[in-house]
């Protein structure tokens, strides 16, 4: 390629106007700021580029100042947040785990199938761009109540979109979560997470370097799809959003599979200096971010970009969000080797530009200049894009006294078996708590041959192909909590993920987050964001878990109002010996114990939400020290092989947790019954806290696990609890009956199992 040093500087493009800037989603003062940054009025192409890079989606302009404060310290850390495409943490001398979560909410609201599919595709690229082979994917989903036809449609199509893309790509789905609340009706949340494994020595970077190196475009051809997708994601959804379907991209998992294999092969062969996928704002964001983070310039010649449509304009090339495309910086002598790899995979590749020392991104098309802007002016990390602290105002939060319900207690006192059964069935058959198998049975969960525990339990656990270790992974978010007490709710969110990993016997390593909130320009919305982010960071610090990156999704609201503020946590953990992974199913001839500082509350519980359609603060008490104490006991007991299985107590409380342990056993072909112990209501938790029985069975509490211990290990386990001074109570014993025995009443487990199994299934 010729180095076009004497390329003429007059522009072929006309100037952009303030009117256009506003139409592109920029503020008037931002238009002025652009003029100031480049010392003249931008061309139309430049204006479109700024609008993409300064959109909320790419620039994080309303969140970055807070995000920069997120706790991120770890000896294992291999990539700093925001600097690379995904977080990376060292697992051992040889391997790193690379992981990230990202939202695709707005596209999924408009076109659920493609929106969800391309969400999966995008997060996969973020991970394999780092040189990591994806081993598992998770998804965190929120919809309006499924009794409405539109919500069912969104649910089914999103699940199918995720499944079809991930299945075809051949990456196991290891879990996720799914909750329903009417606030998500017009604005569902679709967050996708990918976990990959890279050799530490092969970790790839997105920092462009080497003046004179070539810029290689690889993968799918560029079309007009998704133009201004980034801007589209940066405003509220409205009736007219449906007309913006052209801003939703179309995915091709087969092509992604080829791009993935080819990219990993190039990285493995050490042919790549820098690489980034073309995600939001496509070629524009990849080229500007790569050159800005490498502190170099880049010249791009758009006529060389493989196009699948004719007559595309320069700004369209730059902003297209056609899927399955990558940008690579390659030494000239390696070009032919890289192209050989891509030819083997039958993929397009083209040399479209060159690295310069100018620190400018220059856009040429047919020998004419369309843009010439300082790379650092465009991007967020170089502080080019504006950064705002928005106004925050505390709204009226529903903080009441403890909500008291005593229906279950009365039913127990009256020996009213029918009422007991109907309450239990109502809870476990609710779509928020029922079996998720109708969802994950549409996902390939075993491909890769590394499954230790698949979806449906506390966390997914997948082995490393090379080595004894396994990785655990989970996603957790609780909009019900955040809406009431955002700071404390965020601490709970981190703790819940921590418990999910700990209950598998795995040591949590790090966090990725997906922050789903409403319009940040409304002070009440910003309050939730600020409080939740601060709470999350403080909790991460106390747990010593780095937040390695993630994504912010604002504007999750419609004319019906904002969604529940829903920061989602993705957490990964490590099990040194995969064989020691703890499952969650009940075993025969075993006792179950409650361990930890059990302080249940019904206030924001699913029990109250399901039965009374309400929730209120204060949230259950939480103390990170106690969380760690409980988890460490699990680790110690597991190391000494004293426990057979464990689960944490979360939504639906102890009753749901016990039943799930029984149901998991049943799913394994083992029919077990369970008897609550006779002196259950004399246990320390009752005597110390004067618990009501509804609260005991259905209240939600932090720090608490149910642990299943075989009879011969019981004594040693109790000794360990005493030694560590951890509160505990004996809950009951497994047996071979078909009943859940409570206070001499036999409740039919088969009915409960059917209710749990069909609760969600009826909507598919």
């Amino acid at each position, binding site marked *: 390629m010729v180095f076009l040093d004497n390329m003429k500087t007059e522009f072929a493009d006309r100037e952009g106007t303030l009117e256009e800037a506003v139409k592109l989603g920029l503020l008037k003062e931002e238009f002025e700021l652009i003029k100031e940054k480049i010392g003249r009025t931008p061309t139309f192409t430049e204006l479109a580029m700024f609008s993409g890079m300064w959109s909320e989606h790419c620039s994080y302009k309303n969140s970055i100042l807070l995000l920069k404060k997120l706790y991120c310290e770890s000896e294992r850390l291999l990539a700093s947040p925001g600097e690379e495409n995904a977080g990376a943490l060292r697992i051992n001398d040889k391997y790193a785990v690379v992981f990230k979560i990202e939202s695709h909410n707005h596209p999924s609201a408009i076109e659920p199938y493609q929106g969800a599919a391309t969400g999966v595709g995008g997060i996969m690229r973020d991970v394999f761009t780092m040189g990591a082979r994806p081993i598992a994917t998770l998804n965190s989903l929120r919809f309006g109540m499924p009794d409405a036809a539109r919500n069912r449609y969104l649910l089914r199509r999103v699940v199918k979109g995720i499944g079809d893309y991930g*299945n*075809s790509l051949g990456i196991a789905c290891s879990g996720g979560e799914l909750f329903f609340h009417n606030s998500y009706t017009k604005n569902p949340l679709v967050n996708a997470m990918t976990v990959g494994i890279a050799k530490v020595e092969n970790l790839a970077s997105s920092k462009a370097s080497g003046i004179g190196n070539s810029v290689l475009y690889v993968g799918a051809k560029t079309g007009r799809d998704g133009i201004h997708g980034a801007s589209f994601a940066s405003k509220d959804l409205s009736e007219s959003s449906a007309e913006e379907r052209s801003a939703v991209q179309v995915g091709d998992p*087969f092509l992604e*599979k080829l791009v993935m294999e080819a990219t990993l092969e190039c990285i493995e062969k050490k042919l790549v200096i820098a690489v980034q996928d073309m995600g939001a704002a496509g070629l524009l964001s990849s080229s500007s971010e790569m050159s800005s983070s490498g502190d170099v310039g880049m010249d791009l010649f758009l006529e060389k970009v493989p196009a699948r449509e004719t007559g595309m304009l320069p700004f369209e090339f730059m902003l297209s969000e056609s899927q399955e495309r990558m940008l690579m910086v390659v030494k000239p002598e390696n070009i032919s080797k890289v192209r050989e790899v891509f030819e083997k995979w039958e993929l397009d590749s083209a040399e479209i530009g060159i690295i310069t020392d100018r620190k400018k991104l220059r856009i040429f098309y047919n020998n004419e200049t369309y843009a010439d802007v300082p790379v650092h002016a465009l991007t967020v990390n170089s502080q080019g894009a504006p950064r705002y602290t928005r106004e925050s105002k505390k709204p009226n939060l529903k903080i009441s006294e403890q909500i008291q319900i005593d229906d279950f207690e009365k039913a127990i006192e009256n020996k009213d078996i029918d009422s007991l059964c109907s309450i239990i069935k109502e809870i476990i058959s609710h779509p928020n708590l029922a079996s998720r198998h109708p969802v994950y049975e549409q996902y390939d969960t075993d491909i890769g*041959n590394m499954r230790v525990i698949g979806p449906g339990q506390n966390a997914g656990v997948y082995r490393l*192909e090379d080595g004894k270790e396994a990785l655990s992974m989970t996603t957790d978010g609780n909009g019900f909590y955040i809406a009431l007490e955002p700071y404390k709710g965020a601490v709970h969110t981190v703790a819940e993920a921590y418990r999910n990993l700990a209950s598998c016997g795995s040591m949590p390593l790090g966090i990725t987050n997906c922050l789903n909130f409403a319009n940040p320009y409304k002070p009440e919305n910003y309050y939730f964001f600020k409080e939740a982010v601060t709470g999350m960071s403080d909790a991460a610090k106390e747990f010593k878990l780095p937040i390695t990156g993630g994504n912010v999704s604002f504007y999750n609201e419609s004319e019906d109002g904002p969604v529940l503020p829903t920061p989602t946590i993705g957490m990964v953990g490590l099990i040194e010996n995969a064989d020691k992974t703890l499952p969650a199913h009940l075993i025969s001839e075993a006792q179950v114990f409650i361990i930890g500082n059990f302080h249940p509350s019904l206030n924001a519980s699913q029990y109250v939400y399901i039965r009374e359609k309400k929730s209120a603060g204060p949230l259950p008490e939480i103390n990170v020290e106690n969380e760690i104490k409980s988890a460490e006991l699990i680790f110690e007991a597991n190391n000494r092989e004293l426990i057979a299985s464990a689960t944490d107590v979360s939504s639906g409380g102890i009753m749901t947790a016990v039943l799930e342990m029984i149901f998991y056993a049943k799913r394994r072909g083992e029919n077990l019954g369970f008897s609550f112990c006779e002196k259950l209501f004399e246990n320390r938790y009752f005597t110390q806290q004067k618990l009501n029985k509804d609260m005991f069975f259905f209240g939600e509490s932090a720090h608490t696990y149910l642990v299943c211990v075989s009879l011969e290990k019981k004594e040693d386990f109790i000794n360990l609890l005493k030694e560590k001074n951890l509160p505990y109570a004996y809950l009951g014993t497994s047996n071979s009956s078909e009943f859940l025995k409570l206070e001499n009443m036999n409740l039919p487990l088969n009915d409960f199992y059917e209710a749990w199994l069909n609760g969600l299934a009826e909507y598919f």
Partner: protein
Amino acid sequence: MKAGILVFPGINCDNDLKLVLNRVYNFQTEFLWHTNSFKVEHDIYFVPGGFSYGDYLRSGAMASRSLSLRSLKDAVSKGIPAVGICNGFQILTEASLLPGALVKNKTLKHIARWENLSAEGLFKNNFTEDYALPISHSEGNYLCDDNTLKELIENEQIIFKYKKNPNGSTENIAGIASKDYKILGLMPHPERAVFEAKDWPKNNANFGKLFFDFIFSKIYS
């Protein structure tokens, strides 16, 4: 033993199969790329699962016309056994190496879960009553005309039937063999039922191995 594993773009169970053959059976394995014909020098061939060429036309249609498939036809004509799993089964039917076709599941959904199977034909009496394997497919609904079905039954070519039909398959068919049993095709994934997962049904850990043990020791010994 030396196994050839045919690989097409979009195939994604190639490595899973290789892991089992290498680690459990000590086989040498070779991936055979679709654009090349290959020399028939292997003891057995596998056509693995995935989405060959994206399966955008019909599952397996493109792969069945590739150069490597021509070599495979050559190999089976020389009596070398071939086993197609999932997409591999679809490819073998598209290539007319096995009769019938696999169309979209009746539910129109991808189904990924364990299915109980009854072993039939030469497989009968060699598998336990509770035998099961994981399936994961969108197009596993086996379809054939009445004459073909009659032949399959008369010649005992059906090797596995679903106990509870998940996808609408004719006669609950999950897997079949060629008349001489040199070619096998099945939708369930035995290669995924070898390395035990903790949340699998408790008796199933050995089921994948049972399949491979059986074909290596009894069918292709």
